[in-house]
């Protein structure tokens, strides 16, 4: 079965079906090489926008999650409202809103990179906040009591006792969000950011070979995301090893 499947795949992809044109992205031809270089040229933009956005989103998420766990009704209300409102906005809409709307509303024009980062980080932060909340709540109550009993401040309790334990538990979920962020960054192509998806779109317009070019695009994302998965696994092992 597996062999038949492999044969079918090779047949399909090798152009025997008649209308494939892998030459546009073939490393064997000069044209193919320059096209591939053009496609891969978006890599840095995708990586940098995703990394910046995830860093901001994690920080923002934590800042939204903490008041949500306080005893104060207003702080909890703020956190709840933020999560519900931001989570409800589609990412694409948020990107368009920040890029086209913010200059009108706030009188500030920002470049595509920061507009993209802001929209992605904002959108993701609501999810990060929920992940942090779940992680922090999963740490046994006795840990906070023990920290209080040795007179640690709230900030120190969070920093040295609760968050280190919470982050171990939510690492798989954070990895998920990182993967998701890499994929969501493709939406920033709509405002003209020269990242992987935008490059692929532009090449399709000149080469008329969408299937081949988008297949390369899929493989680019796959490679990036496998890299991220490895990184998360490595961190899980490193942090987990210390506990037992």
């Amino acid at each position, binding site marked *: 079965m597996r062999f038949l499947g492999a044969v079918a795949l090779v047949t399909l992809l090798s152009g025997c079906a008649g209308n494939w044109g892998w030459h546009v992205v073939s490393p064997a031809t000069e044209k193919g090489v320059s096209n591939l270089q053009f496609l891969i040229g978006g890599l840095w933009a995708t990586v940098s926008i995703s990394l910046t956005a995830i860093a901001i989103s994690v920080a923002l998420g934590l800042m939204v999650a903490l008041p949500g766990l306080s005893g104060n009704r207003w702080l909890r209300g703020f956190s709840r409202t933020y999560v519900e409102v931001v989570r409800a906005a589609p990412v694409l809409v948020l990107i368009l809103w920040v890029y086209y709307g913010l200059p009108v509303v706030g009188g500030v024009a920002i470049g595509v990179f920061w507009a993209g980062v802001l929209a992605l980080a904002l959108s993701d932060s609501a999810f990060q906040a929920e992940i942090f909340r779940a992680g922090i709540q999963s740490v046994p109550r006795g840990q906070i009591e023990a920290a*209080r009993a040795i007179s640690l401040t709230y900030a120190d309790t969070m920093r040295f006792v609760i968050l280190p334990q919470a982050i171990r538990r939510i690492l798989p979920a954070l990895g998920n969000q990182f993967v998701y962020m890499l994929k969501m960054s493709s939406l920033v192509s709509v405002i003209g950011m020269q990242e992987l998806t935008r490059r692929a779109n532009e090449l399709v317009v000149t080469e008329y070979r969408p299937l081949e070019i988008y297949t390369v695009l899929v493989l680019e994302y796959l490679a990036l995301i496998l890299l991220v998965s490895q990184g998360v696994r490595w961190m899980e092992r490193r942090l987990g090893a210390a506990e*037992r």
Partner: protein
Amino acid sequence: MSDPLITLRGVTKRFGDFTALDSVDMDVAEGERVVVCGPSGSGKSTLIRCINRLERHDAGEIVVDGVTLDDRSADTVRGEVGMVFQQFNLFPHLSVLDNLTLGPMRVRKLSRADARARAMRYLEKVRIPEQADKYPGQLSGGQQQRVAIARALCMEPRVMLFDEPTSALDPEMIAEVLDVMIDLARSGMTMICVTHEMGFARKVADRMVFMDGGAIVETAPPADFFSQPKTARCKRFLDQILGH
């Protein structure tokens, strides 16, 4: 005679409709060892949890070392009051040494070297200096509880509270924890112990306190307490736990 180290006047604590502490008065002198016993739900744990403000009392007054306990003074008071929990509540992501140095370094502002020296001194006292670099998960229950005692002692408190410190332990590990507590009592530490270990109580207690229904029903030196309990409730309780 000097002022008592701890004074409770009319301390009341409610959980919803349930009154856990009903206008409790108590004095504990410096160097005094008090053992609190009583049936489960009698309020004995709540009593000592109020003394370091893990629970906030609803009425009455608690004074520790001249400081009246409220939200603002809680951190100051907790610095003077060590607490040992039934479930140990060690920080699982930190080594034994780091468990012990966290409070002294963050709260008492000791240097790392001083904090380590102090930690090792108390690990010697609880007789497990060789476990300093292990993680709590690698220790037996008895060892974990001794580390927890050392962690509280590292803050050099004026008084130690014990909340059923041996109730979560396997029988063969109870003795090693009680031995450490007996040493501590002999060193002159002021102690309030909630425990059902009556052998320990006979050995070290200056005073027995029997609680039932959120109130102190009877208080007496151990010799009188065990031989001639004054109330029927106390007699019944003693029969139950000493009976077999």
